[in-house]
């Protein structure tokens, strides 16, 4: 018996919808980059890496050739490395364990599709672009996200969107993937005190 879903969670995408959405994104990537051989899919740790590898598998299948793929950890590029000195200031978000970045190809001249699960303030993507450029000079960078929840704080816009989901800042979008969470789904979590 699965545990009952908490009352403050609403499913936004089921496993089936998620799978269809990812397939659509893969097709859009191929459509927007016709005949492009130098295409690479780079997922942003953690959930973006899993989504990225699924998209990569699909575009290889549909496109009929082997495209490059990789992962990026942006921890060292964050803009909220804690401010010490001011008493009581804690990092805006907890500093997670850093995963290894893995880009097993030369990035120069490649069209890179960055993949992340949720697009929110845009700060993660800013950091990812900075990280990418320390590996080389890509020909172009495009962005694919499963959910765009709005509230951008930087001039960043996705090229491929799974689902646009207007949210309140107090709400949270939780993307769960089979590989890590045992289930494929996107849920909207309402803050309990709201």
């Amino acid at each position, binding site marked *: 018996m699965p545990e009952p879903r908490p009352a403050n969670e609403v499913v936004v995408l089921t496993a089936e919808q998620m799978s269809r959405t990812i397939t659509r994104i893969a097709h859009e990537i191929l459509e927007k980059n016709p005949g492009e051989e130098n295409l690479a899919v780079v997922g942003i740790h953690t959930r973006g890496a899993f989504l990225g590898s699924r998209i990569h598998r699909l575009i290889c299948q549909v496109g009929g050739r082997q495209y490059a793929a990789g992962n990026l950890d942006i921890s060292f*590029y964050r803009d909220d490395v804690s401010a010490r000195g001011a008493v009581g200031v804690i990092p805006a978000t907890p500093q997670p364990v850093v995963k290894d970045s893995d880009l097993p190809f030369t990035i120069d001249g490649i069209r890179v599709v960055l993949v992340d699960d949720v697009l929110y303030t845009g700060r993660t993507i800013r950091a990812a672009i900075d990280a990418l450029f*320390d590996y080389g000079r890509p020909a172009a960078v495009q962005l694919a996200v499963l959910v765009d929840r709005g509230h951008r704080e930087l001039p960043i816009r996705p090229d491929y969107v799974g689902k646009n989901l207007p949210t309140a800042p107090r709400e949270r979008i939780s993307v769960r993937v089979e590989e890590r969470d045992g289930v494929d789904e996107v849920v909207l979590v309402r803050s309990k005190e709201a």
Partner: protein
Amino acid sequence: MPKRDLISIEDLSRADVELILDTAESFLPVLERDIKKVPTLRGRTIINLFWEASTRTSSSFDLAAKRLSADTLALKASGSAVEKGETLKDTAITLSAYSPDIIVMRHPSAGACRTLSANTEASVINAGDGKHQHPTQCLLDLFSMRQNLGRDLAGLRVFIIGDILHSRVARSDIMGFQMLGMEVTLVGPPTLMPRGIEEMGVKVEYDLANLKDADVLYLLRIQKERIKAGANFLPSLREYSELYGISQARLRPGQRVMHPGPINRGVEIASDIADDDENLIAHQVFSGLAVRMAILYRTIVGYSDGAASGEVL
């Protein structure tokens, strides 16, 4: 967030140690690419104070800070106001005027880092204080072991051989090795064995009879500079070398040799081992960079593991 010092290995929990080692591992790809630099500590100021000679430690701290994009300032005793009689406290107050985030210090007196820490807002990292502690050496040793001998170091038998009495590396290593579940045996002449060291939970031996039991041989040099003139610790270096020096002839296959450097060829280590690719000595130096990057990074961002609650930006 209160400031976090790293003065002794005891300042770290086992989880902290593992977090540092994991973080160091994630810096390795950065060190392999063309642009070997990340912007993480951009705008931070790190001061390196080396009141004692150092090649490995000072160069790797300096490079580690630069790889993290921090600004660095290096001071040595010679040529500084220390020669004019300035006390450590006053040096600390003076340098604090620059609002450094971290001060890395090596000092000939045990406990000097605590004095420094009490007189500055900056986090203090001990790069070796007298005969007391050298925690960053211990962490890089652990990193080298983990990279070469497997992630789980529990049960590994390490023999630390040489001048234990004057060695801050030994004091840090004993604690760190035991923290990760290793068995530590100390070997050396009785005159260079600190009295009561067994209370740290180590075995003590005065000859190499049981050397075959060791998985790792951790060699220490005789610290001539800490032995006062006229002190009679050893009849001669040649006799020491005959009794405790490690050459290929004394090794069994599979045993790995480590050494914090600088080595004294022909004394504690024979050239046939120093020049052998199987030893971990060069890897230890390599590890120093990634591990010190991890230590500087963790000192600024904190040790908490926020993976469970990591909200996306």
